[in-house]
């Protein structure tokens, strides 16, 4: 069963096509990866799914509901959570507040009870805090930094906090935009483990954009390859890896070297 399907998505900015007729299906409970050379339209696809861009043509269907016209907050309320390529944490806030923000859509406190902070608001805050501590902080092993301001944390930890924030939403679909970019090997392995655990324990479907082929090949169930805004291949990691179109795409973009390197790296790691 598909939790998300994208049909014929076309998006252009002032004549420049970012996406052309992209079709994609994400199976419930899977880890699906979108890969492609730089500028292939991966992030545009993500932004169309979360609702920042309004595609000229095509539909986005989430859990059987057409969400093409919905604005981002409504999509979030339906259960789509995401992280950003260039970490989009609230830098002035503590880790705890950032993660609490993730739970925003699940909370109900209205303005009046918020102002007086009696009964309902207080209980809800305590409840959410308990949940976050138990489910997110322990799980991602960041309980020791909950009072730290985000801005001072090392890069790898910031990525983890962003994941924590997305998890606090308890999303049905978790979209990760380059979750391990810029991380060292140890951090990458941690992150890969977290992603797998999310899929197992949280009953969450994962959709990610990633450049690190090793990771993509290791943990994905399904891989989509984009080039110049078009879908050029889809399938199991092993199938995609062998697809000549894909090799050509990376060759055409001058990225063949890095692809080889990444594939090579993966071979050695395996």
């Amino acid at each position: 069963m598909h939790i998300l399907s994208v049909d014929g998505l076309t998006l252009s900015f002032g004549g420049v096509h970012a996406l052309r007729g992209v079709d994609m299906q994400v199976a419930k409970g899977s880890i699906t990866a979108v890969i492609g050379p730089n500028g292939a339209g991966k992030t545009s696809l993500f932004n169309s799914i979360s609702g920042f861009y309004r595609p000229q043509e095509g539909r986005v269907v989430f859990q059987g509901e057409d969400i093409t016209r919905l604005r981002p907050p409504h999509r979030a309320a339906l259960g789509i959570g995401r992280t950003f390529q260039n970490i989009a944490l609230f830098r002035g806030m503590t880790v705890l507040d950032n993660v609490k923000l993730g739970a925003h859509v699940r909370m109900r406190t209205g303005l009046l009870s918020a102002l007086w902070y009696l009964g309902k608001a207080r209980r809800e805050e305590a409840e959410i805090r308990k949940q976050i501590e138990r489910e997110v902080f322990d799980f991602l092993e960041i309980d020791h930094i909950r009072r730290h301001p985000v801005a001072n944390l090392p890069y790898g930890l910031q990525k983890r906090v962003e994941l924590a924030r997305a998890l606090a939403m308890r999303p049905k679909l978790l979209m990760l935009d380059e979750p391990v970019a810029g991380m060292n090997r140890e951090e990458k392995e941690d992150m890969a483990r977290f992603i797998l655990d999310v899929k197992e324990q949280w009953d969450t479907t994962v959709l990610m954009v990633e450049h690190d082929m090793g990771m993509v090949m290791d943990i994905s169930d399904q891989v989509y390859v984009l080039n110049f805004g078009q879908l050029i291949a889809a399938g199991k990691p092993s199938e995609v890896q062998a697809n000549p179109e894909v090799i050509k795409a990376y060759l055409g973009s001058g990225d063949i070297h890095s692809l080889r390197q990444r594939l090579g790296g993966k071979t050695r790691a395996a």
Partner: protein
Amino acid sequence: MRIGSPKESYIADEALFRTRTQWVWLWLLLAVLIAYPFVANLYWLFLVCLISINIISATGLNILTGYTGQVSLGQAAFMGVGAYTVAWLDNNTGSPFFINLLAGAGMATLVGLIAGLPSLRVKGLYLAIATIGASFILQFIFINWESVTRGTRGINIEPPSVLGVTLDNPDTFYWLVMPIMVVMVLLAANLFRTRIGRAFIAIRDRDISASVLGINLPFYKLMSFGIASFYAGIAGGLYAYFFGAINPESFPLLMSIFFLAAIIVGGMGTILGSILGAIFMTLTPEILRYGVDILSPYIDNAPQILSPLRTAVFGALIVGFLLFEPHGLAEIWRRVRRFFHLWPFRT
């Protein structure tokens, strides 16, 4: 030196005041607030009442500008809406003062929400400009809607009375304005312990991630605008009662800039900042007056430089704080506290 205290529950950990020391200071502050009217003279009571009104308005503006990141130059005009509503009710219906005050705040909220509509379409600075436009239009209404506002002649307001006591002087008015101020500040502090307050900050810091987390930007921006105007309305209503007369010139654009300056100087995005800023900015003319008095033997016509100096210092405070201490007095206060907290050890 003080060491961290272990928290027993998450509720305790989420409390506004967490340590015993904080509570001690709080009770002390309360004692001072209660004792103050018995020891201060009328002039200093007058100043404290004025400061309290300014704190309410500055807190409202800080919620909008400091916490939500939406600059407004309309705070004074919204105070005017509150003040005129109160004045009209006072003159025409004779309803009790707290009803008038709430009605004034409600009306200010309504007008604020309408003026905030451009925030749905435009970001950041355009909104500031829209509020300038709204100020002018409101000013026009204050002047020209004669049947309600008595035009340029202004309206007189009877002093409020509570339980038979007429609050017509700072020593009595204090007991009205001070508790209201404390409550308004506490409400604002509470707000930022909940999802709504966090949503405001999220919008300020990064509105894109905010919307991905399910925060409806237009809704929360308008809500923030509404809250700021509500605070302005309360402050304006109190202003009307306190001064006993209002006219269109009571709420000029300069006053909106005054509140903006107050939160910049005090510290944007902190409750303490609104308080410190309002106190500081209200007392600045007094401080300058003493300064000029001291200088007067050495400078010709010293009193004559006072008012230009006030204007210049006013601007210099805005510029200086933005350049050198963007987090305002609240940050300085925090550093001082930190110093004593760790004393005698250096960090």
